């Protein structure tokens, strides 16, 4: 047992000075995740706003979510590498492709779930379409939009780990290199750190959600106790 943890607890692997050390792998992993998530959000959120606000193309929004979930992530990575060659850019493109569906679907679903009476009142108060969107619909849809971003983040963290198999850096390197070198302690170190990272990212998302969602929407001011807002949240694909 002790042997299996040697790599994880060896101080040499945590030294900042060496570029192969665990802290550098963590930073790399976070970089890939942040880049992919930012690009995916920049694509998916405006489209989700448009479809949710106008209800045009709802079919597309629902189906892209289902398609994204059933697409095997490892297959997509393999295909992109075989067609486009090794390199970071094609792999980050794959991460973006996998992060778009959950964000798009939840953004759309969030806007559609907004009480039509609230939208009508906003219109009755003289708000313009853009004001209705950003001052009424989006704040009320925020919990679902953020849950989509959180699933997408988890999806990207997990897929980036798998992508080490086809040459991406990050924490997956520890896993994949450990497996090919038959160094199980290195594999364990990678698994533990990447699992901890994923859990921390999810916790951070949870915290962010509490901070930015209006208390009036999240029901934290309500006295009713149990909030039954969303029983069936569309779960994202995962890797």
């Amino acid at each position, binding site marked *: 047992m002790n042997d299996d943890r040697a790599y994880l607890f060896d101080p040499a692997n945590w030294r900042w000075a060496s570029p192969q050390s665990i802290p550098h792998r963590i930073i790399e992993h976070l970089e890939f995740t942040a880049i992919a998530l930012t690009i995916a959000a920049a694509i998916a959120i405006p489209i989700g706003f448009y479809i949710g606000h106008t209800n045009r193309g709802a079919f597309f929004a629902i189906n892209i979510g289902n398609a994204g979930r059933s697409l095997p992530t490892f297959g997509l990575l393999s295909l992109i590498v075989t067609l486009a060659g090794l390199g970071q850019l094609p792999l980050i493109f794959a991460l973006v492709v996998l992060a778009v569906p959950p964000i798009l679907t939840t953004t759309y679903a969030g806007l559609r779930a907004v009480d039509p009476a609230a939208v009508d009142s906003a219109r009755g108060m003289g708000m313009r379409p853009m004001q209705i969107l950003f001052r009424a619909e989006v704040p009320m849809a925020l919990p679902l939009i953020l849950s989509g971003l959180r699933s997408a983040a988890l999806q990207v963290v997990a897929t980036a780990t798998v992508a080490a198999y086809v040459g991406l850096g990050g924490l997956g390197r520890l896993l994949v290199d450990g497996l090919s070198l038959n160094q199980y302690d290195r594999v364990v170190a990678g698994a533990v750190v990447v699992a901890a990272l994923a859990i921390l990212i*999810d916790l951070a998302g949870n915290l962010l959600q509490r901070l930015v969602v209006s208390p009036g929407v999240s029901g934290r001011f309500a006295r009713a106790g149990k909030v039954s807002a969303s029983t069936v949240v569309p779960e994202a694909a995962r890797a």
Partner: protein
Amino acid sequence: MIDYVRNNMELILAAFGQHIALALIPVVIGVIVALPLGYLAVRHDWLYQPLITISGVLYSIPSLALFVALPLIIGTKVLSPLNIIVALAIYTVALMVRSVADALRSVDRNVTQAATAMGYRPLKRLLGVDLPIATPVILAGVRVATVSNISLVSVGAIIGVGGLGALFTRGLQLRFPEPIIVGIVLSVILAAVMDSLIVLAQRYLTPWARLGGRA
């Protein structure tokens, strides 16, 4: 493409068969474990939050990490198919506990009270009234779990057991897109077929839904 399929039919079928087993056995195990857990979460209110929190944490662990960490926890061999099955069963439970709990919670209290008044005992009421009414929401969870398991199995190819994932690693080694495309297509088709089968099962299990009555 057709030539590739024709020449490698045996390999493809073996990978496909393994894929089906590796994806679906965990669904069955996961549902069997999640049903009582979800029930407990509803029965004992204080259990709900901790169970949902633990599920969320488990669900957020990346699959490859869970696949390779399991030998340390349950003592399997690193390259054993059991790692994949147990890992996917854990994801299924993590996802389904919430579905089952929310489904049972959503059953109208008037209905359960009516059943009790008609003389249903707790267990008989659970199996004969609550569970059938909760079926659509539970099956919605089963659909998500099944489809995501099917797409996850292939990651197992990295540790040597991955059903159709074997076609992906082969394509990568040969720098040859054919096996990869065949694998992706079969995986997506399998997911679509299983998803429709569950929808059909739901129609069969909840005949009242078609009559336009309220569940």
